[in-house]
């Protein structure tokens, strides 16, 4: 630690340049990552809602509805389908309005249409499913959140592609700048490196202080970026709470587990920090390795 601090003290401008570039990269990457996380969380949330609801005419025989249900089930695009009969729809209405007797008067099960609540495997299948339903004779109305899902899908796609390009640019820029600043530092210690080689130091021994300094820089930068991100989260918390008022939970599907991202929780923050730490330390290690490699050939 003493050597790391001494090295930073001896080359303050190079160290500051490294810190600023790395901070810029890590901070922006984290912002992009969090934005994508929330967008994917929102997509996942929408997938838990009935994505298409099809209302049939009141006199539609149940067999016709079941036939449509079975055909959809066999298409391979459906996660689940729930049939709501007129009686069930009436029960739901009664439950929803139990505190308002006025709304319950004069209402019978006959006025509620039977319906199917359909959950697609992927939001991309929704327009296709809706089109299919509209062509069926007994269908009265097809409702689905086409615009919202379309917008969210295209936004997520745009941000994902844009992020990837921006991320590659940031990564290249920071590795180049950090390699150059490390080369400056090595140039100042050229004699020491030559001596170490003559004394029998291995490549890893010579690299070690630069890698250690890089890891220290990575740690400080990720901590700094993380603290600012946490600060921003808490600053915008009232706005976020209002925005997600109807959303009880957002999660990210990580294969085997669903990772909670909303409401904000300590695990999410720990995950963000860990990721930023790994990311910044990887950048500094690659840069230190490239810079020292030049002198060890």
């Amino acid at each position, binding site marked *: 630690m003493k050597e790391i601090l001494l090295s930073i003290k001896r080359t303050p401008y190079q160290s500051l340049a490294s810190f600023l570039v790395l901070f810029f990269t890590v901070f922006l990457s984290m912002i992009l990552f969090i934005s994508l996380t929330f967008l994917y969380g929102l997509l996942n949330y929408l997938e838990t809602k009935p994505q298409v609801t099809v209302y049939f005419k009141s006199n539609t025989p149940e067999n016709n509805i079941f036939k449509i249900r079975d055909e959809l089930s066999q298409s391979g695009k459906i996660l689940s389908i729930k049939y709501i009969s007129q009686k069930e729809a009436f029960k739901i209405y009664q439950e929803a309005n139990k505190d308002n007797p006025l709304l319950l008067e004069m209402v019978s099960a006959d006025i509620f249409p039977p319906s199917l609540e359909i959950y697609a495997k992927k939001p991309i299948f929704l327009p296709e499913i809706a089109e299919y339903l509209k062509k069926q004779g007994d269908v009265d109305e097809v409702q689905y959140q086409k615009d919202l899902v379309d917008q969210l899908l295209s936004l997520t796609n745009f941000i994902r592609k844009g992020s990837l390009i921006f991320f590659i640019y940031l990564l290249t820029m920071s590795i180049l700048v950090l390699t150059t600043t490390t080369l400056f530092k090595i140039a100042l210690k050229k004699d020491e490196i030559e001596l170490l080689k003559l004394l029998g130091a291995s*490549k890893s021994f010579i690299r070690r202080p630069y890698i250690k300094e890089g890891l220290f820089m990575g740690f400080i930068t990720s901590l700094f970026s993380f603290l600012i991100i946490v600060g921003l989260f808490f600053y915008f918390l009232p706005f976020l709470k209002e925005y997600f008022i109807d959303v009880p939970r957002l999660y990210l599907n990580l294969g085997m587990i669903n990772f909670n991202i909303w409401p904000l929780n300590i695990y999410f923050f720990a995950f963000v920090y860990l990721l930023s730490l790994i990311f910044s330390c990887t950048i500094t290690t690659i840069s230190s390795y490239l810079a020292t490699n030049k002198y060890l050939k």
Partner: protein
Amino acid sequence: MIIFDKVSKKFPLGNYGLEDVSFEIDDNDFVFLVGPSGAGKTTVIKLILKEYQPTSGSIIIDNEDLLSLSFNKISLLRQKIGVVFQDFKILNDKNIFENIALTCKIQNLSFKETKEKVREALSLVNLEDKEELFPIQLSAGELQRVAIARAITGNKKYLIADEPTGNLDPKTTWEIMKIFKKLEGKKTIIIATHNSDIVNSLKKRVLVLKNGKLIKDKRKGGYDL
């Protein structure tokens, strides 16, 4: 054991640093490498350290042909060779203890072992009380002794010195030579020097180089060009 077998070193401009040089140095031998400037003394040292690659011939140290060594093996070889450089090569931003401890750090010795070995070496060169000082606070003679202390620290088998008394006054020169005498029989010592007084007084094996050629190899020899 160090073996030079018909070793030549031709530099890019076409001049020879060494030409067809052969000799053997046994373990724990004490050898002076003498000759005028440009004779090839430093070239021999650089070839032993594998700073230079021979143009032809082979160099064998402890049964290892230097030509076929990888970087890692070169590092291990260099860990066995303590070198006292003409310009000392002492790092100014480290104190004396840290400078000498470098070789122990390279060999991954524990801090306790490092402390013992550095203090042992400092005692041998009579600098026990200077370990916390920085190079700028020492005289040229003291710096040369620090360089020797570093060269003998950490289980070195060979001690090679390139003009170790070149910049020193006669009194300090003899103090330095006394240190080398103390190490005689414990390590293989090779000293490249111009100093005829030392060579003539100590009566050790002398390898005489002239224009890159070995012109004399004499046991108990003198400074006789």
